[in-house]
């Protein structure tokens, strides 16, 4: 049964539980964590988005935004992005890279693959919390996506 409660607005792909907890806390402060799904590696992210494996029964509706770390176990962030962009179903899905890396080559590689935004995680918690909260508010509340992405 698809209800509003089972729908997901934010898919957080993050292997570091501390980072994930900090991000979820920051989003919760702004009531953005209710419809959030957290997966710990690239494979799980792809399973979720393509309704495979553990997520085969998931409603077809895609999230409003994917917050994607780059260095992930099994399938890394760049590969996840590559597969999302290669598939017509997820080709237009908003993807935001949220990473510790400040390397130019990551920036260039992800933009070349058509990422929607690239955000380096600030170390200071204040900055980090503010950044994640702003991201959540922007992509969930402000940004609009084409209707076919959200269609059931």
């Amino acid at each position: 049964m698809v209800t509003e409660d089972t729908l997901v607005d934010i898919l957080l792909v993050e292997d570091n539980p501390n980072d994930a907890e900090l991000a979820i806390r920051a989003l919760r402060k702004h009531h953005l964590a209710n419809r959030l799904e957290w997966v710990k590696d690239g494979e799980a992210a792809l399973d979720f988005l393509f309704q495979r494996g553990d997520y085969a029964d998931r409603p077809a509706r895609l999230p409003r935004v994917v917050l994607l770390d780059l260095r992930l176990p099994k399938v890394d962030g760049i590969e996840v992005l590559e597969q999302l962009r290669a598939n017509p179903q997820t080709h237009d899905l908003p993807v935001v890279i949220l990473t510790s890396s400040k390397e130019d080559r990551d920036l260039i590689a992800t933009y070349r693959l058509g990422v929607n935004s690239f955000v380096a995680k600030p170390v200071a918690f204040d900055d980090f919390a503010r950044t994640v909260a702003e991201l959540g508010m922007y992509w969930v509340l402000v940004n609009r996506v084409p209707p076919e992405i959200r269609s059931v």
Partner: protein
Amino acid sequence: MGIKTKLILIGLLPLAMAVAFGLILYRGQLELGQLRDQVGRVSEMLDQLEQLESSVRYFVHERSDLERRRGYEILDWLDVRMLALEEGFPEGEGAGILAGMRRQLVQVRWAYMELDGLYLPGLTAVELTRVQGVVARLQSEVAVLKPLVHGLHDLSRRLVIGYSDELWGSAFSLILVSALGVMVLMYPLLYRIASALQGLTRAVRAMSGRGGAVPLTLGLRGDDEFAQLAREFSLMSRSLASAEAAREERARELEVAVRDLENFSYSVSHDLRAPLRAIDGFIRILEEEYGQGLDDEGRRLIGVVSDNARKMERLIDDILALSRAGRLEFEMVRVDMNALVDEVWADLAEQRAESGIRFERGSLPNAVCDPRAIRQVWANLLGNAIKFTSMRDHPLIQVLAEHRGDVIHYLVVDNGVGFDNAYSSKLFQLFQRLHGMNEFEGTGVGLAIVKRFVQRHEGQVDASGRKDGGATFGFTLPVRTEPESGEVHGHRRYAG
């Protein structure tokens, strides 16, 4: 046989020929002299015959005993001369004439002796007739002898001319033979030299074209100097090729090492930041959610943890910046230093806020360099200068430049806190700081980055200072010719 030996031998050949030529000429001249003497002797005989005739005439006419004896003297002289002539002529030449002459000479003597026998102080008519008859016979005998002597004279002259021709002929052929000999001997040698030089030139050109990566063997056989050179060349080429291969191997290893280092710094950037974020994040959460239960000291301790997390982040950022400084691919262009320095100074406005620093920039020569790298150099040097002068009275920062030989020396001079000159060598080393952490902020990486960038421009860094007496930091850039484009690039293109 070596080329040197061959050349010496060929050089000796004309020498030997010259000696032979001289000998032949010397001996020929001797021979020729003798033949000429013969000609002279024959001429003298003719004169003596004339004398004999005139003596006979005088003798018959004047009956002088003196003339009679003179006649005998001449005849004796002729006999002696005859012997000398017979010995002087070469075998077979004029033998008939000589025999005829000897016979005729005997006839003449007999006629003279007969005339002498008729010698009487007074002569009868009959006797006179007999005397006249004998004289006539004597004269006819002399008349027979004379053409023979003439013939001999001609013969000896012919001999002289013939021998002279022969002599010159042999000398000429000797010169010709020696010239031909030198030519024949030189030809293969010259051919060898020319072809060997050609081969060497080709090989050297081929080697410089391929950068010595491929060993070359020169196809020069034999055992002369060129063959030796060719062997040495092949050896050199092989050792160059192996050195080149070793160099390439080292370059590959270095590349692998650099890539490892890049991966390492990438890991550092990612993996060290996450725990820092956790430390800072959770300590904040602790403060927010349980702060009420803490006293001031507890909250101060939380602040210390948080501050250190931030310091460590800055340290990581600086290490990564230093690693990027080593990896940055340079794009050398002509850079307007005045504009670049002005812009860097403007960018530092936030850092120097309200410090009232007076800034003086001299006229700076342009330089061919990578604008991003040199921009960073200026930013670090000026940033340092601001950091160490802002708390002083009448703070002043000057930027100057001077041409020094084939380099340009750029200087940042300040009147800040300075440093003890004894430690100036430590300034550009990684993580070296001359001030306490609580005095001035910093990680000790900024000047190391300056040094890395300047060294990669083949320049040098220097620093001098005095405690509480200001500091001077300088770097040099080589004066380079225009890059390919030759265009003066503004700094704006590289801003950000």
